[in-house]
């Protein structure tokens, strides 16, 4: 976009997209049939589209590099942006179901890339339903970190199966996470916090991180501070409930 052109959706002072042009409903039904393109398999994900500077054109360059962090339900992308500079060598992707919000994050990343040459090249976003299509984007053991920050609480018992952390979906997350990979969850809803924690505790392929490990992990601090939702909770003086677990080899299995 040329600089003379005036684009009202981009803030003049910061060059970042303005959120008020990307308002979206807070909830989206993950059960509905999707009408957006879905990658056929992990090998069909076009890395040159997501990380143009690192993958000049498909099939070329550093083709061995794979996405390692996934922020599921990335919202407006606050965490991704913080992680991008903290782990400049790691490819990461946000997954978001709401179309407009995804557009916002896309804009946000591309303006940051323009404003800070050489930076934010390792971060991208995709519009998808991660509850249905996680295996279409990542292969077995590909990810080292997964984030589920302030997910939709779905209070009604009838809607519990729409929760993004659930016993059966954890099987899929365990599949895409490498052994030792870490799953981060946080919420400001106590009921959901208990739910996510008990789902993870009862799953044979996850174990909780110790207090010491949580202290040492720089990412844990970002869970609250980096995300838009987290900042909102902090502003209102609310409480947060986090559960951070590691992917392990189940005890009855040797391989």
């Amino acid at each position, binding site marked *: 976009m040329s600089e003379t052109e005036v684009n009202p959706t981009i803030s003049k002072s910061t060059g970042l997209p303005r959120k008020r042009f990307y308002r979206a409903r807070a909830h989206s039904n*993950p*059960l509905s*049939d999707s*009408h957006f393109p879905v990658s*056929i*398999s*992990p090998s069909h994900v076009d890395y040159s589209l997501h990380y143009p500077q690192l993958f000049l054109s498909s099939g070329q360059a550093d083709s061995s590099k794979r996405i390692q962090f996934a922020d599921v339900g990335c919202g407006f992308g606050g965490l991704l942006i913080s992680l991008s500079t903290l782990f400049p060598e790691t490819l990461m992707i946000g997954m978001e179901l709401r179309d407009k919000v995804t557009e916002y994050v896309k804009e946000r990343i591309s303006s940051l890339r323009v404003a800070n040459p050489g930076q934010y090249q390792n971060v991208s976003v995709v519009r998808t339903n991660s*509850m*249905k*299509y996680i*295996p*279409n984007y990542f292969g*077995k053991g590909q990810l080292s970190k997964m984030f589920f920050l302030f997910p939709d609480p779905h209070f009604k018992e009838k809607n519990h*199966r729409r929760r993004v952390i659930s*016993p*059966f*979906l*954890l*099987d*899929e997350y*365990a*599949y895409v996470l490498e052994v030792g990979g870490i799953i981060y969850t946080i919420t400001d809803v106590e009921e959901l916090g208990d739910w996510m924690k008990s789902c993870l505790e009862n*799953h*044979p*392929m996850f174990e909780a991180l110790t207090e010491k490990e949580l202290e040492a992990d720089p990412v844990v601090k970002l869970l609250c501070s980096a995300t838009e939702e987290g900042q909102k909770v902090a502003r209102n003086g609310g409480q947060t409930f986090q559960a951070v677990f590691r992917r392990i080899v*189940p005890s*009855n*299995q040797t391989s």
Partner: protein
Amino acid sequence: MDSEPKKDIEVAPALIAVHPYQCSVAVAVGHHLRVFDLLAGSAVSLTDDSAAVPFHTDNIRAIRFGAKGKLFVSAGDDKTVKVWSTESWSCITSVSSEKRVSAVAISDDGTYVCFADKFGLVWVVDLDPPLRDKKPSPLLSHYCSIITSLEFSPDGRFILSADRDFKIRVTCFPEKPLNGAHQIQSFCLGHTEFVSCLAFVQALECPQGLLLSGSGDSTVRLWNVDSGALLDTCEVAIKAGLVESDGKAEEHDHAVTDLCTVLDGLLVAVAIQSLQGIILLSCNVSAKTLSVAKVVLMAGEAFVPTCLGSSPSTGKLWMVTGVSNLPGCNYPALARVRVISGIDVEQEPVVVGDDNIPGGEKLLETLQGNASVDDNTFLAAAEAVKTAMDHLLIKKQYPSANRESRKKCRNDRKLKG
């Protein structure tokens, strides 16, 4: 708002299952379950102490014999799974499901029966001890997708589940399945439409077998289940000359509806929508390739098979066409059974005439019912099955204008005015 196209009446295809040693043949059409004993040469009367006839009260969607032939399972839209002993043909266990059942599988040793419901959950039932009423335990789940097919791998290590979201999931079947199957071995991804059927081919050089899958994208694909790697793709509709390779005449017109390995897995029979006959594929296990061996057409009769069955090593393929109910037709539960024999690598397969069919006229009477209707009814039946399948498994596409108007009619927006 545009009125939605009138919903067709839900119909279920006729199904067929053949005993692994060809002791008996079962046909399910609508809620009718018909079994013929080939050894005794007579119809089997099923017994269920706790239920009256009919044993199923709605369309049967899945039937299957256990690998050793001692068990038989039937399940469907009445949310009941019935396990039958093939010796006495009495119902030994009846399981209630919360949702309609779309697929069933029996573990090799006959200890576990797995079934998939329409919400994508797979349940497992322990048959030991064989109690009358069993509570199923959840095994695994596809997130809100209809599971079309369930299959155990020949070595029993994996349970495979295929769904309408183009996906095949390979899950390690655990030692204690009642606690759930959490370890996913792989996903077989590559189909571009719903996956409709699964089958394994085995050979000496590959005892764990290779997986075959048929799909709404008119292809049969060959997979390595350990890694989920796609080994070969056979565009059966094009290879069989049904469509030009460039022309996309009618999308979804040639969905693969069923797969059946014959002759110990050397050949695979494929049923395709709109094809009056079957395609025989040969699978080269060492080269890991698929190729069309023969196309067997049904001469002199309009017959589009809705389901295939065979018992290994007999070289006979059993086919059925039919539908649970057909609008405008007085005969519900239509079915027509045919057999292709002499399926061999060298021989020319022959469509067996009605007088030479194993079990003879008695078998046909048992399995087909008594109504005699002409060919066109069966063509209409196959067409109804195809429409029902499309409705069930293909995502509805709305043009963007249409989608906007649907959004406007949303209840939450209406309230706001």
